[in-house]
């Protein structure tokens, strides 16, 4: 039986190209570490993140999904993150309503200058998701490999 503390959650992080992806780059060049199971998907803007992608991640075995974008008011496309914020507010509330623990979803605004914040956010999010354990409520059984 695996030791519970060894559980490494799979986390999909959608980062907008202009702020948060650059923030992640800054975290990297500042050598600020965060768990290797956080994997970043670059999107042009947080408003490109379709709820389908988030559900897809959970289907395929993600344990947590985080969307990062420019701070409100700073969107490269002026309004994208405002739409993203509304969509995420509703979708995440719905997932919570369906019993998917709300700790598994998050939205964080990270600017290109906030490498520190990016790393801290990912560490905190990974810790939260790890404490919730493997996501069993919304995954697709067919996509599970090692489990019986």
């Amino acid at each position, binding site marked *: 039986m695996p030791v519970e503390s060894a559980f490494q959650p799979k986390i999909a992080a959608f980062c907008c190209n202009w702020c948060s992806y650059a923030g992640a780059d800054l975290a990297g060049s500042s050598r600020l570490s965060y768990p290797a199971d956080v994997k970043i998907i670059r999107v042009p803007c947080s408003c490109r993140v379709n709820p389908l992608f988030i559900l897809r991640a959970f289907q*395929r*075995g993600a344990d947590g999904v985080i969307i990062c974008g420019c701070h409100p008011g700073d969107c490269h496309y002026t309004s994208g993150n405002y739409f993203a914020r509304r969509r995420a507010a509703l979708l995440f509330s719905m997932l919570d309503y369906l019993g998917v623990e709300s700790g598994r979803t998050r939205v964080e605004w990270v600017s290109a200058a906030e490498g520190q914040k990016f790393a801290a956010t990912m560490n905190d999010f990974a810790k939260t998701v790890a404490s919730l354990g493997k996501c069993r409520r919304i995954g*697709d059984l*067919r*996509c599970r*490999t090692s489990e019986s």
Partner: protein
Amino acid sequence: MLKILMSDIGRLFERLSSVGTLYLPIEGGGQTAFAPWRAGADVQLDRVNTDLSVKGLFFPQTEDIAFFKREGKKISVLPSSDPDEPFAVFGVRACDVRGLEVLDKVFLDDPAHMDTFYKGRRENGALIALACSSPAETCFCGAFGVDLAEPSGDVAAWIVDNTLYWEAKTQRGERLTEAVRPVMAEQSGTSAVDASKKAARDALAAAPLASLKDSLSAWGANDMLTLFSSPLWANLSMSCVGCGTCTYVCPTCQCYDVQDFDTGHGVTRFRCWDSCMYSDFTLMASGNPRKTQLERFRQRFMHKLVYFPEKYGGMFSCTGCGRCLSKCPVSMNIAKVIKAVGGVENG
């Protein structure tokens, strides 16, 4: 004939479930559907009809066919094995038994193209049919020659005055009978159930849709092309929303689609129910051969009432179970179609 008091029926179920998984009409979420029996389950034996037919136990909504495994650039194929677990279904109505007979035609009739998954389940599943005593207003099984009071199956059962009567009809039925005999009493003669049968048949004859038989014969008087090109289809299909409700609650609809699902570590090939009402049914590179809802709607009824009997010696692929009548979101259904095309105005 054996009998058991309904108050003791749990003992019968216990015996039956020792032979294999026992499926019964069980209440859940305000609905009745066949589900595995467990002590304490809310078994509904007086409900006509179950919300879903027994079809799904023999022809599940989804069923894995094969698994493709990829290692590097090599692909290996792992076919699914045929079902071989024994099970029994209790409480199947005459219309649903007929439904399985229809499916048998499609899946088992041609030895060269036997559906081995269906076959495996048919061979391993025993049917304990339950006669109806009071049909619902939507029932019209009589129109298709189904006798609601004398269901076929491995075992036929009747419930009269708090007693369940049991009669084996096949060899498998006999074997089941031996298994349950210890908890049942002998009953000599059939007089106890005869009155009930007559009452049930009378009730059906007095049901609102009893006249459908006559309308149906008007269909037979017309040739296929006349029926196909009837101008009535336009108005009948107008209200159809193109969902698959009628198809999925139907005990005889047997169309399925084969799809692949990439699990990330291989590909599962599975089949799943499909509906001719869907706009993407039989979708090909050139599109759906039936481009309008009118054509799709017509297909369903022509298939059930014309093409199928044509192919299988007059057997209709409708059993009069009435589910589509009560489930259709817009109450457009086969009874209305039979009447309209058969020349009878509604009401």
